[in-house]
Structure formats: C-alpha cells, structure tokens
C-alpha cells in the first residue's frame, strides 16, 4: 500500500543521504522524496512517498526513527491528511493551439508562468493523480518538458508534526 511518511530532521549536511541510504540499503521503495528547511532553520521537513506491506511500513518508520538526525516521524496514512504536488510543464503553444492550451490550463486551474513564441510554461498543483490527469489530457506531442516536485503532505486539522 502507498504511504506518505513525513519527518522532521536536523538540517545538517548529509542528513538527506542518511535517509536515502537507509531506503536503498534495506531495499525499501521510494516513489518520491522532497525536503526543505522549515520555519525553524535548524529543522528540515521531508515527505517520503513509499509503498509496502504493513510489516515493511512498520520497519521503515522504526528505521527512520533510529537515525540519529531524525527528530520526529509521522505516517500520514494513520489519519486524515492532504497532499499536494507541484508540476512545471512546458507545452507547445503555436498560433492555432495557443487558445486551446490556455483553456486546458484554466480547466485544471493551472497558471501560465512563462510565455514564449512557441510555448507556454504552466504551473500546476494538486494531488499526483490530478497532475497525471492533466498530462493525460494533453496531446503527447505537445509536451516539451515536465518537472514534478513529488508529493508534500500535511495532516488535517489538529494533526500537527512539530517539536
């Protein structure tokens, strides 16, 4: 089953490689991993999308907790949560298709953030499936380049991951 694991860790050199190394050394899956500093610059927040049986997920959580730099770990799937992913997608937008592309972008509530002679760059956020749906809905030949951040997740309401 797909799980989103959120964790807070010391914002120190090499911390990311400890997490990445753990996943590869123990053969766990990583679908995506995003990391950045929090409002407290000494802490980084990481969101890892992984998958595995309940036993594997239990081991992943335990092994992450065991890393000395990791302060707190939360399996977002243990409760209600929201996830979002950002995609930047550069698409062909030649004279005849410019209007059509703008409309598709609006339908998916994306924003055009760069306009060039033959292309648009669109910023789109949402769940991974929404981003997939946008890509699906485009003509494959129209896609010039995509870049996705991987999911970020946060618990709903009172579920707060903080120290």
């Amino acid at each position, binding site marked *: 089953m797909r799980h989103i694991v959120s964790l807070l*860790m*010391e914002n120190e*050199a*090499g911390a990311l*490689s*400890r997490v990445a*190394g753990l996943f590869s*050394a123990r053969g766990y899956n990583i679908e995506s991993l995003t990391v950045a500093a929090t409002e407290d610059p000494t802490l980084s927040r990481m969101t890892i999308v992984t998958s595995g049986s309940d*036993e594997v997920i*239990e*081991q992943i959580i*335990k*092994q992450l*907790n*065991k890393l*000395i*730099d*990791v*302060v707190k770990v939360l399996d977002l799937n243990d409760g209600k949560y929201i996830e979002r992913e950002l995609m930047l997608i550069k698409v062909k937008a030649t004279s005849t298709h410019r209007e059509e592309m703008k409309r598709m972008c609006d339908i998916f509530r994306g924003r055009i953030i760069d306009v060039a002679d033959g292309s648009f760059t669109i910023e789109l956020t949402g769940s991974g499936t929404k981003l997939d749906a946008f890509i699906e809905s485009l003509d494959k030949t129209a896609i010039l380049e995509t870049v996705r951040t991987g999911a970020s997740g946060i618990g709903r309401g009172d579920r707060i991951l903080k*120290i």
Partner: protein
Amino acid sequence: MNQVLTTAAEPLISDKLPSDQLSTNKSVSEKQITGADIVIKCLHAEGVKFVFGYPGGAVLHIYDAIYNQTHFKHILVRHEQAAVHAADAFSRATGEVGVALVTSGPGATNAITGIATAYMDSIPLVVISGQVPVPAIGLDAFQEVDMVGVTRPCVKHNFLVKDVKDIAITIKKAFHIARTGRPGPVVVDIPKDITAHKAEFDYPKNIEMRSYNPVTKGHSGQIKKAVKLLLEAKRPMIYTGGGVVLGNAAEALVKLVKTLGVPVTNTLMGLGGYPSTDKQFVGMLGMHGTYEANMAMQECDVLLAVGARFDDRVIGNPKHFFSKSRTIIHIDIDPSSISKRVKVDVPIVGDVKTVLTEMNDLLAIEAPEQPSAALKTWWAQIDAWRSKLCLNYDNSNGLIKPQHVIEKLWEVTKGDAYVTSDVGQHQMWAAQYYKFDKPRRWINSGGLGTMGVGLPYAMGCQFADPTAQVACVTGEGSIQMNIQELSTCKQYHLPIKVILLNNRYLGMVRQWQEFFYENRYSESYMDSLPDFVKLAESYGHVGMQITKPGDVEGALKEAFTMKDRFVFMDFITDQKENVFPMIEAGKGLSEMILSNDIGAEDL
C-alpha cells in the same frame, strides 16, 4: 574562492594556518589550545585508557599531541583493521567505549571491516579518523576518502568536524551515542587543518539531543502481561542474546531463570549471559546449536526473547518456525529489532536489565513455590532430548579432534579464560565446547562473521585484563588474515595463547562443499602454509606444534604455565571433522543433522 588559492607563496593545499589567521593569533588568549590537544583532552575527560591506532599524514598533529600526554596509552597496531578490532574487544571485555585512531584515506578504509564488525554486534566504539584539510575536501586530494559517506551504512552515527570549536561537543556526542541505547560504533572524521587551529577547551558535562532519546524503561503493563504469560505457560522457554551481555543483565537474567525454573538457551552472542554449567542451560541454539535447545525453541508454548533478534542463523526459516504456534515476548532496547523477522505478541522496548529487574520484582510476589506439573513434564521432555548427547564425538581415530582441544582448554583454564575466536568451524567448536559461566568472556564476531578478528580481539582482552588468561581459538585460514599482529603482541609483551586448530582446510567452507557440493573442494584447501612454530619464534614468541591427541592436555598446561609469554600452539587436527548438529541454511529448527551417520530428518 578559497584564500589559500590566492596566495602564491602558499602551497595549493595547506594544512598550516592561513597567514592572516597567524597574525591574529598574537592576540589569542592563552587559554586557546590546538584542535589536536582538544582531542586528547576530550579522550581524557571520557576516561579513555587505551587508544588503538596507526599514525599517518592527516593525524600527525594528533599524534604529536599524543607524544606529550600521559592520560592514556596509545597501542600501535600493524594494520588499522586490527586497531578497530582490538578497541572493539576491549569494549566487549570491559563494557567501556573502545577507541581507535586512524589516518585518512587508506587508514580510514582499512578500518571499515572493524567498524562494520562492531556495528553488527552493537559494540560501542568511537573511531577517530583523520581527513584531508577542509579546503582540500572534494578535490581528490592525496589520501582523501569520503569517510562519512563510506561508513554511513555501518555506523550508528558519524560526524565530519569542520570547525575547531565543534571538536569537543562532537566527541562528547560521539561517546554519548556510542554507549547509550543500542550501542554501536561512531566515527568522528577530523580534517587536518582543524587539528592545528586553536580554540578554548570546554568539555560539556551533559549532552542533550532533541533527535536522540533512547528508551530505557519498559512499558509496565506489557511487563505485567509478560510475567503472567510466563507463569501460566506449560512449556516456557527463555532465549537470550548479546543484549544481555551488552546490557550487563546477566545477574538479573539468572535470577529470573532460577525463580521461574525454566530452560534457557543463549545465542552465539549471548554465551556467558547465563552460566553454561548450570543445569537449566540447554546449550547454544541455532544453526550449530544443541538438539535440546533447538527442539525446545520449536516446541515451547511461551517464548521469552531477551536482547536477541531471531536472525537467520538462529531460527532458520521463519515459516518453519511458525509451523508451531507459541506466544512470543520480546524484550529489546531497539524497537526495530522487534517484529523484524518474527511477529511478536508482547513487545517490550527497554533496557534489558531494567526490564528484567522489574519482572523479578513482580515475580518476588507472584512466583509459585513449587514448579507446576506441566513444567515437570516439560523438563522430562527436555531431558529426553538431552539424552541424545548431540555433542558427543568419536575420539578414537588417533588424530587430534578439535572438540577435544577445546574441552581440554576449558579444563586447563578452569573455564575462566577470555576466549576469542575467528570465524569458521573452530568458532563453532569453541562456542559448543567451552562452557562460559561469565559474560564478556566469549569474544567473537557473530553478526558480520569477520575472519581475522581473533588475534586483535585477544590483544584487546589482554589490555583490558593484563593478568587474565587469554586464548585465541583460530584456524589456519583466519589467523593469516591478521597475522601481522604477532609483532604488536611482541612490542607490548602480551602473553596470549593462540590455539590454532590446523586442519589445512577452510573448514566450514569444506564442510558445506562436502554436504552441498558433492565433495568438490573448490579453493578451500590451504596450501603452502608457513611453519607456524618458526613464524612465532621469529617474532620472539614461543611456538609449539602438537600432533598427537595424547599431547594436547600436557601442551596446553605447559603453555598456560608460561604466564609472561606469548605461545602459538599449532594443533594438527583431523581434516575430516565436521561441526554437528547442523541445520542447513533455509531449513527449520527441528531439521537438524546430528552427525555424519544421521542425515537430515525432521525428528
């Protein structure tokens, strides 16, 4: 860009102070000392008695500081791997944190096997490695290796110190992390320029880390549940591992086992955690465990696992293990050890000694005075398994039997020696036939299975307890993997006794080839062996070769009488001898091969 690069007169990479810093040094207060001196003071503050190491370029400042200090003794080994093994054994024997010091690059990579060995057996170590100067890091400098990157998968934690002001707090953290929770090795990588820079020395008394707070006390509710289950069990069994030894919980374990009157087995790492000569001890379990221990593990209805981790060499195939149902209670300080290979019914995360003491307190009120009828029946069953005498061997063919050597070693040393071993058949025979009654006496590489640890382990034990009898049980394969340490033993006059069980084969490899590869002994014959007697003598040691079974006891007595001499005993043993009982890899606990005559059977 880096200031060093802009100064034409300076070499491209300098480990000296940049000139602008030198001028400010005049105003530096006298309280400031070099990073190298800070390292020494930190080790002193931690009460370190021995540092095992080998000098080199990146640690020259530290070695210069060592030259002028008297707080600890530096032991010069002949290979960095041996430095880490010796520090590791010192820790295993004493319970203190072992310390090793190596230079950058090859010094650091030579230390890796030692670090990984300690990691797999959860041994607290602080390994200080030199690094190229900070400005040179990442430039493929001479003797540069990314030590933090290379060791990451085999340390509990590691640090790269990039500022002289951070040395003290980092070393404090390193010792704290190494010795608390589930212990393990910690690497502190210190660039050379940092050891020349100056700062005031201030060693923190206490350390708090928001990201590291290991649990010690177990959950009281779970502990009550565990005690109740053990008291109600019809076929209870206790299985303990290295955690009991590392957690100094042997006394608490003995009390628990005695109060409950139940059988107990130790893993390879747990030997000595319960007295082997006691009648409630059913021997070691696992791949080469006793028949009674493995059968009792398989047939019990309540199993208490203490500081052990159900690894593949212990319970074999987990599916086969679960073909019988039983309730499992598991005490371990590391939550990730629980429910890793085996699903557990009552997990208790905590320090084993604290948890066992709490269980003993509960039992002081609740324990029955008489053993139950069910327990008596259980013991009758165990005694029936015992009557198979699975460790008996034929000692009549005129050749020296390795088992016989170990039995005599136990007699001659009165069961009181530190016994180190390498890895292979001799290791299993030592574990099976030397009856350890005390913890921290059996020193071997259980997890990683590192050939070559035996001799450096013996060195670590002898430094830990200079007047003790220390025996290194080894094979002709393993001993050659760190044979250079004969020189270290000479330098420090270590009266170690090497018990070489020389069968001219990589015995365990040969055994598997005999069983599973139709006697195709691929590369397992040890040709061109040195004359070990002459080799030992060339280092100024005593060498002996023993070829007749009748001479074994006398030779051992003679060797141990030489209390101030290193004695290398080359026992020419039966080449065909195999380790029994044996469970094939991937098979179940009750599928043992008991001897050459009795094939695999589900008994």
